[in-house]
């Protein structure tokens, strides 16, 4: 595989990582959604490129799924939810943006540190892997630093973008397509859940009344 292929794959993966940081940085719901859509599109591109590079046409399906579902449908749906449940636009963060950024950088460093010494694995996959790992960790970080349901979903989805990136990066991995589909189903479930159960601030309050009524024996702790 030529160095051009390598460069392009690298570039795309890098772009995704940068976009993860942008996601982490954003503090307005709509902006977050748009950035995510962008990341999904980049993912689709990278997957498509992998399908070319690895000469494995079935990856095109994955790319298409990523593009359609995560690039357009889900962001649109989330936009709708934001409007319907009139979630206030500001996202309150658990820890300050600066700290989050630093943590994110630390995570990237960690993931490179982890993947770098990995030996015989060919160079593309290794680079991709580092980026993918970073994206995954950043997604998780986003999930736990945001109090807002929608942004948490976005966090999960960007995490899952990282997975798909890694999966497609892994040469000739079977069932990748199925996996991507399965994940899309999962995401659909989550979005559906948010919408049906009218979850506003946090995942774990279905309804404000639920808070004091229950939450695992709170009512009768000693």
């Amino acid at each position, binding site marked *: 595989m030529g160095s051009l292929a390598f460069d392009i794959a690298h570039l795309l993966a890098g772009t995704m990582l940068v976009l993860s940081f942008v996601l982490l940085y954003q503090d307005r719901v709509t902006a977050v959604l748009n950035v995510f859509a962008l990341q999904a599109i980049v993912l689709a591109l990278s997957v498509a490129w992998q399908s070319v590079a690895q000469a494995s046409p079935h990856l095109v399906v994955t790319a298409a799924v990523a593009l359609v579902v995560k690039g357009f449908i889900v962001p649109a749906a989330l936009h709708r939810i934001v409007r319907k449940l009139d979630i206030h636009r500001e996202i309150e963060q658990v820890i300050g943006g600066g700290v989050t950024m630093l943590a994110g950088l630390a995570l990237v460093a960690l993931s490179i540190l982890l993947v770098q010494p990995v030996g015989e694995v060919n160079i593309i996959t290794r680079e991709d892997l580092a980026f993918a790992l970073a994206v995954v960790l950043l997604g998780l970080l986003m999930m736990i630093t945001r109090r807002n349901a929608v942004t948490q979903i976005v966090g999960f989805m960007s995490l*899952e973008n990282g997975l798909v990136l890694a999966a497609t990066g892994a040469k000739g991995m079977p069932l990748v397509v199925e996996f991507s589909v399965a994940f899309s189903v999962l995401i659909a479930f989550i979005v559906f859940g948010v919408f049906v159960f009218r979850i506003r601030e946090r995942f774990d309050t279905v309804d404000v009344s639920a808070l004091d009524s229950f939450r695992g024996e709170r009512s009768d702790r000693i």
Partner: protein
Amino acid sequence: MSVPIELLLLLLVPAVAIVLLALVTNYRLGAALNVLACALTFGAGVGLLFVPRMRSDILIVDDFNIFFVVLTTFIGFTTSIFSATYIAHELETGRLTPLFLRFYHAMYQAMMLAMNVALLANNTGLIWVGVEVATLSTVMMVGIYRTPEAIEAAWKYFILGSVGIALAFFGTILIYLAAQEVLGEGLPAMAWDRLVQNAARFDPRMMSLGFVFLLVGYGTKVGLAPFHAWLPDAHAEGPTPISAVLSGLLLNVALYALLRFKMVLAANPASLNVGAIMVVLGLISLFFAAFMLYRRRDIKRLFAYSSIEHMGVAAFAFGMGGPLANFAGLLHMTMHSLTKSAIFFAVGHIAQVKGTQRIAEIGGLSVTHPVLAVGFSFGVLAIAGLPPFGIFASEFILISSTFARQPVLAVLLVVGLLVAFGALILRLQDIVFGDPKGPKDPVEASYVPLFLHLALVLVAGLWLPAAVVGWFRAVAVLLG
């Protein structure tokens, strides 16, 4: 090569049952069909014992999974019997509607199918699919009562489960990458037996990195602390049959997946010593659950925590490694799933006759329902590790063999077990003895599954069939 008919049945029967049960409107017929399907699956599982071991790149039957297949299908079967009577009562009390019952039964079969797939898969990806589907189907059933608590529990389960799934998937990719370098692209690089055979040549770093993700991912399903959060609420809020299969089966299947990967790592001496990590996680789970037991007020949540405790013990055993400890771990998994499901059967009866799950409102069971009290007490005593029940045997081997190797760890284990013991007996006495509280109306659900399980646990505590011992020994060696 030909796939034996039993194997196909194991997968086809539930698959067909899903569709049928989704269509059947009459709930009695549905329950009956559910039992029938489970019976057929169980039969197929037993039949599998008599076919020669086989493998393909997708499916495999070996000493390890064949036993768990039988166990899983068996408990699935008994639970379906229990569920049939239990659900009828739920319908009378109006907590469920026939429509939801159709959904419930379909999901039940979906879960069985998923677990069978996970157990029989000879493919790291397929097992992942199995566990994920099993999780999703149980999520559906946990939330089936649609009370705020139930939905919250289901939601918590769902989110944490999804994150777990994602991480496990990343781990799977990493293992594949490690294997692909040696075994080339495609299915072989994901097949258990090939992985184990060639693990020595894999890149140890990649494997270790992958295992960490798998540990967190599948560990969430196993319910190891600190990944346990979903488990207590899911057990407490779902229908009791689901609590039984969650504790009895799903945790086992997740641990089974983890063990498969541990085998691969064990085959490569250069890789990270995951045993230590598992020991630490096991001890954390044990102590955490043991102390949490004291403050429980909800009877089902109580035993959910006890499941965390026992999964911790099992993880500890496999972490210790060595033929004795691994043997103990396998025995412990088996005994725990049998005992715990039995306990949940009893708890289901109790909750139905007393109309509550709050321990404070249950008392003097031995006065109002002597038989039920006996069954329940035996279950709790067994889970607390008292002889002559099976868990005593496994803990006996584990503790004594550990003490000879790592005295400090053994002492820690003993302390944890003792703390948990104290809590369990305390609650047991609250429930079974003292002045009777609550209604006295008789139990209409059937006691058969409860006492069947208890009998099995009792026999296993006194005598194990040579075949089972043989399988366990073989697997224990593989687990390193």
